[in-house]
């Protein structure tokens, strides 16, 4: 039945968004449809999940979601009937326009450009097909994105996840804005787990035409715009990220849509501004880092509004800027405010877990119990050998302990070969009177993303991915600028760079597929995630305490997500007291005392741990080892640290068990 509810929800939201979208241009129509569809979908979920927080109950369930979506669709029809008559655009017209555009690209593109676009499409299909055999993957996906989504729909509420009712959250990562988790939780309600594992792909499919559209807005020709869009797929962090359940692509897609809508035409209409605001607010909900992107989009909005009126009086320019700022901000607030208000209500701090020291203390905003601002700057050494080497990262792409390209590492050959020269040359071009109107805003946007990244503590290359939205169109501009032999050279360089990275992506996925599914036969869930099979056979209602590291959280829900979970962050922070520290799966022996009262509050039944552990409790509770995985099941080699499952037993039972 869940499939029916989910399909009704998606269909109702899709039709309602389509009826509300309005434009003569197919690209703009599609962008509006995406933004409005997502706004309605998440808006309805905020309404249900927020009502549950305010009034209690379990409102966020698929039947309620389907019913509310149908009501919204009906309201759309009624509203449009009593306002100005609106003729909904015909989907056929949009499909025809897309087909015409693809034909034009094929007609205008050089051989290398045509080849690389076709190869990219084939690679995307190939790696997606291989990923269908995998369970959901990703470090942060396992640590909190997916567990939070599972818990939202179990609780029927959008409150932060906490396994015990007397704490506000299981850890600060469970308190971030969580559109990503909502999306994964929704998919897992009605799709097989392996199919839900492709939950980021739709956002990649939004991003590709968005880059194309942005490049065209800048004035690039069709083949150049197609190359720039294809190049996005060649960025390892994007390609591998689209096959994991992170939040980078989804956030990026909505920043891209906002930017596309803002740069569509000379005069900013109220509809453009409002929808761009919606998209920017949704991006914040997917990844709170995009508060930076909202600031940058805000600056660009003011700039574009001012530029369109600077020929008139200062007063008219100021009026245009104020109007643009108000409408854009209203859009942002409408889609982003839910998370801020929720955290204020639930955690006494609208920006929880962020705490700005004395200022927030004065305002009475709470500190997170487990959030530590310090000690994160060193993390950049995972990607560069020292801070001063960051400018060379696109060429060096170093990663510690010789790791490979992955969702968090690697910008790829196109960024080094074409995008970086394009940024440099567009800077030169700014000194020309004939410069393209959008060149400066896009270049400034890219530079601002980098500057904001430089000043923040946590420097991961994936936090700069928004640069691609601003700079890939610049690369299309550079390609468009070239003629004759220069164009042939730059087409071949682009095709080579993209082709090389497509080979990297396809070959890595192929090797991993061969290793996991052909050689190792890891088709069962426990074999894929490498946990003892007993986790899948625990009695109904089992509550598993995860004392291993965070990424193990999601896997411990077991097959068909039957188990309950006390995540690592909460278990280590509130239940366990390790006298010798947490070895993080390195195999050290360690002693751990578990708080019996905290175990009882959470009705814990089992403990999962990695490492040779000696478990004790401070109350009348014991631990009986029921599974031990200390050898690789495939080659029988000793694991560095055993994976252990303990059953929690009461003292009386423990005494009775003794011989």
């Amino acid at each position: 039945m869940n499939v029916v509810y989910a399909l009704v929800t998606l269909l109702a939201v899709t039709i309602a968004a389509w009826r509300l979208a309005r434009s003569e241009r197919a690209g703009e129509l599609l962008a509006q449809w995406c933004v409005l569809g997502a706004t309605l979908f998440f808006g309805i979920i905020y309404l249900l999940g927020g009502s549950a927080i305010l009034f209690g109950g379990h409102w966020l369930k698929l039947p309620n979601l389907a019913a509310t979506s149908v009501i919204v669709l009906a309201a759309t029809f009624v509203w449009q009937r009593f306002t100005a008559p609106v003729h909904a655009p015909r989907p056929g017209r949009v499909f025809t326009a897309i087909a015409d555009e693809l034909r034009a690209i094929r007609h205008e593109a050089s051989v290398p450009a045509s080849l690389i676009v076709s190869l990219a499409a084939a690679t995307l299909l190939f790696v997606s097909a291989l990923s269908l055999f995998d369970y959901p993957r990703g470090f942060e996906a396992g640590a909190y994105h997916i567990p939070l989504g599972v818990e939202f729909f179990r609780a029927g509420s959008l409150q932060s996840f906490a396994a015990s009712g007397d704490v506000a959250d299981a850890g600060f990562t469970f308190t971030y804005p969580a559109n990503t988790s909502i999306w994964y939780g929704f998919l897992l309600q009605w799709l097989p787990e392996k199919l839900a594992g492709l939950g980021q792909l739709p956002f990649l499919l939004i991003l590709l035409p968005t880059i194309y559209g942005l490049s065209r807005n800048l004035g690039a020709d069709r083949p150049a715009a197609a190359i720039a869009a294809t190049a996005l797929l060649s960025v390892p962090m994007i390609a591998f990220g689209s096959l994991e359940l992170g939040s980078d692509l989804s956030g990026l897609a909505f920043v891209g849509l906002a930017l596309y809508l803002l740069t569509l035409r000379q005069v900013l209409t109220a509809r453009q501004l409002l929808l761009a605001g919606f998209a920017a607010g949704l991006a914040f909900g997917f990844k709170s880092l995009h508060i930076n992107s909202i600031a940058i989009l805000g600056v660009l909005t003011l700039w574009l509004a001012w530029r369109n009126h600077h020929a008139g009086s200062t007063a008219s320019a100021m009026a245009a800027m104020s109007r643009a700022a108000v409408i854009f901000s209203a859009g942002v607030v409408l889609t982003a405010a839910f998370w801020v208000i929720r955290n204020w209500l639930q955690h006494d701090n609208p920006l929880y877990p962020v705490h700005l020291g004395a200022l927030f203390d004065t305002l009475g905003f709470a500190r997170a119990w487990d959030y530590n601002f310090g000690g994160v700057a060193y993390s950049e050494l995972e990607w560069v050998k020292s801070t001063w080497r960051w400018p060379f990262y696109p060429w060096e792409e170093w990663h510690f302990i010789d790791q490979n390209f992955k969702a968090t590492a690697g910008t790829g050959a196109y960024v080094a070969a074409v995008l970086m020269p394009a940024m440099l040359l567009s800077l030169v071009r700014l000194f020309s009177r004939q410069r393209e109107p959008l060149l400066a805003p896009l270049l400034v946007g890219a530079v601002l993303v980098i500057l904001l990244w430089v000043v923040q503590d946590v420097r991961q290359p994936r936090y700069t991915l928004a640069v691609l939205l601003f700079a890939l169109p610049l690369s299309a501009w550079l390609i468009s600028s070239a003629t004759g032999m220069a164009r042939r050279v730059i087409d071949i360089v682009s095709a080579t760079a993209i082709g090389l990275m497509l080979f990297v992506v396809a070959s890595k996925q192929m090797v991993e597929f061969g290793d996991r599914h052909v050689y190792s036969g890891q088709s069962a869930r426990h074999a894929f995630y490498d946990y003892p099979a007993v986790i899948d056979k625990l009695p109904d209602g089992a509550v598993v305490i995860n004392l291993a590291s965070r990424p193990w959280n999601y896997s411990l829900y077991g097959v068909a997500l039957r188990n309950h979970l006390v995540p690592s962050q909460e278990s280590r922070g509130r239940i366990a007291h390790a006298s010798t520290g947490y070895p993080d799966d390195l195999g050290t022996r360690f002693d751990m005392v578990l708080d019996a009262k905290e175990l009882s509050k959470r009705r814990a039944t089992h403990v999962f741990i990695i490492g040779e552990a000696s478990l004790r409790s401070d109350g009348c509770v014991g631990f009986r080892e029921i599974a031990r995985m200390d050898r690789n099941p495939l080659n029988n080699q000793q694991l560095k640290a055993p994976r252990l499952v303990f059953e929690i037993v009461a003292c009386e039972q423990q005494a009775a068990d003794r011989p």
Partner: protein
Amino acid sequence: MSKETSVPRTHRIGQIGAMLSLISLLAYLSLSAGVANHVRFLYASLVKVATKLGIGL
């Protein structure tokens, strides 16, 4: 071949861009630790498969 574009064909920028991108691609191929690691990864995988099939590499 006609290309609809509003970007002026600025020969100099296009030529410099083509040259820079070629040099930059060569620099990338020489310096990228990512590519080097991937080549090692593929070679190790190939050796593993060959060993499984009883072929010495």
